[in-house]
């Protein structure tokens, strides 16, 4: 029983960070209709930046915040490449984000080398009736809840949030009421970058990251986003938790190497069922 609970706890912590990656993907996808293949890269970049800043003597908190800011700027740059040029088709943008991701590989190896890196999070753990609850898990979950609450508030109560939603729902009408769609797309990329950065900063103390960890982060994040229907960022929390727990249980009871294959199969099944149900006319318009 305690094994089961510890798997679930691990799954919740992992799932929270998948949800953060997914929320960034969804925000970018809603505004630009581009699946950002560089989403995992933001997390890795932020994690590496944090480890350097901590090494330079910055206290916890400041280092993480600064790294998230760096990830946001990286997101903005990725957005400039992907949607900054007028007349770029969504397919071209998709391939361009792939280019950004690979370019970041070169950058990351150049700055930090090709070995996995990690940094200490909050050490120690709580004791709950014989069950060990590492403090870093609590930090991850609490930070995720805080970020999602802020996101909800942002989309609900601020003009920028509403403008983002407006661009997502009807770019033409948004232009008519004076919202710059390209500017909002770039803003979406920046926000997506920062959210990816938060995921990376929270996850790195749990498991060391290497420059190519972005692939598994992207895959899990996209799986969560698909489960959430690529619609509202908050739904991604549910998607992320499902994927995270399913993977942790598979890794615990079956075999660790099956966990990502399972998440992928699950996502493929959902995609195909959705794709088959969608009317052809609507699908070709996308």
């Amino acid at each position, binding site marked *: 029983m305690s094994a089961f609970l510890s798997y679930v706890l691990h799954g919740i912590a992992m799932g929270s960070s998948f949800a953060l990656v997914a929320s960034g993907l969804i925000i970018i996808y809603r505004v630009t209709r581009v699946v950002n293949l560089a989403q995992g890269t933001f997390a890795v970049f932020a994690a590496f930046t944090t480890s350097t800043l901590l090494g330079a003597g910055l206290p916890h908190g400041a280092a993480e915040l600064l790294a998230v800011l760096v990830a946001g700027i990286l997101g903005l740059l990725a957005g400039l490449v992907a949607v900054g040029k007028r007349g770029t088709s969504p397919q071209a943008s998709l*391939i361009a984000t792939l280019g950004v991701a690979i370019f970041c590989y070169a950058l990351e190896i150049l700055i930090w080398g090709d070995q996995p890196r990690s940094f200490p999070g909050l050490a120690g753990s709580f004791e709950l009736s014989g069950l060990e609850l590492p403090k870093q898990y609590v930090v991850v979950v609490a930070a995720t809840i805080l970020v999602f609450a802020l996101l909800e508030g942002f989309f609900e109560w601020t003009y920028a949030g509403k403008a983002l939603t407006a661009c997502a729902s009807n770019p033409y009408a948004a232009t008519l009421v004076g919202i710059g769609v390209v500017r909002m797309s770039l803003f979406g990329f920046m926000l997506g970058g920062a959210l990816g950065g938060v995921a990376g900063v929270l996850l790195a103390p749990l498991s060391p990251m290497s420059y190519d960890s972005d692939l598994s982060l992207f895959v899990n994040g996209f799986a969560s986003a698909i489960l959430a229907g690529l619609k509202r960022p908050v739904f991604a929390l549910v998607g992320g938790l499902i994927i995270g727990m399913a993977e942790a249980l598979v890794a615990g009871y079956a075999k660790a*190497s099956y966990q990502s294959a399972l998440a992928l*199969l699950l996502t493929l099944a959902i995609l195909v069922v959705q794709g088959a149900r969608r009317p052809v006319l609507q699908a070709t318009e996308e």
Partner: protein
Amino acid sequence: MRGIMRTERYALPALLLAMLCLAGLFDETVLSLYVLFALAAIVTVGVSLLMGQAGQVSLGQGAFYACGAYTAGVLTTQGAPGLVGFIAAPFAAAALAFVIGVPLLLLRGHHLAFATLAAHLIFLSVVGEMTITGGDVGLQGIPRLRVGGFQFDSVLSYAYLSSFALLVVVILARNILASRPGRGLRALSSSEIAAASSGVPVGLYKLAVFALSAAFAGLAGGIYAFYMGYLAPGSFPVLLSIEYVVMAAIGGLGTIAGGLIGSAVVLLLVHALSRLATMSGMPSTAPVILSYAVYAVLLMAAVLFLPGGIMSAITPAWERIFRRTRQ
């Protein structure tokens, strides 16, 4: 469009025949680079056909390459004759594409791109778990290809073999592009509804071109298995799939000549930079950094500033020369 077709009809087979003859004149280093080029070009022509003509994005072509390689490798290490493995490789890859294509090709655009990427990752983890493929350690001791009494031993023999395979692939692709199914593919890439209402069997054609491009990749993979003699899941990373997309995009999506030019340009550039990076005084990570940077910059530049690839830049000049010579 017709102009491109015409140049491809004469120029490409002639070019390939010329390379086939020249292959005997180079030393081993150049020849091994040439084999890599021919294998990459075989896959890239398939990718170019699939993405440029039929409009289907595939980020999983490396899985079909791996499937062909493992088919040839496993069959021959289990005692089958080399020729059987060589012939089975493209068919196994096409069969795999056919099976996964039935559900996956219901998807479009981004979703298809992700699904093919996912298929590649799942394929790698399955291969890593099976004992017959050697698992994560890899499959060792694949015998050299033997056809009749001739054993393909030297790099030169593989240069000829891969040139021959490339020639077959180019001729096949060219004939398909010029045929009625080829026109059907171009029609469905712009609008599936319009194509379907004009009588194009959309689902069937998409599946067929997907399987065909996989067969090309499988053919190249089979040759790779005999050439290297060793296979591991690590030889077929996701980046391999992306590499083919980069090559096709740089050469010019949808054109056969673009597939050849793209693979040649990318391979030569990466090779030149890796020689630069392994010179003394460079850090040990320099080759990796440079090759990633080259792929990234080429990909972004091609997609944003030269959407038709190198072919779109040289075709007008090429046609001018052709017209002049004919007059």
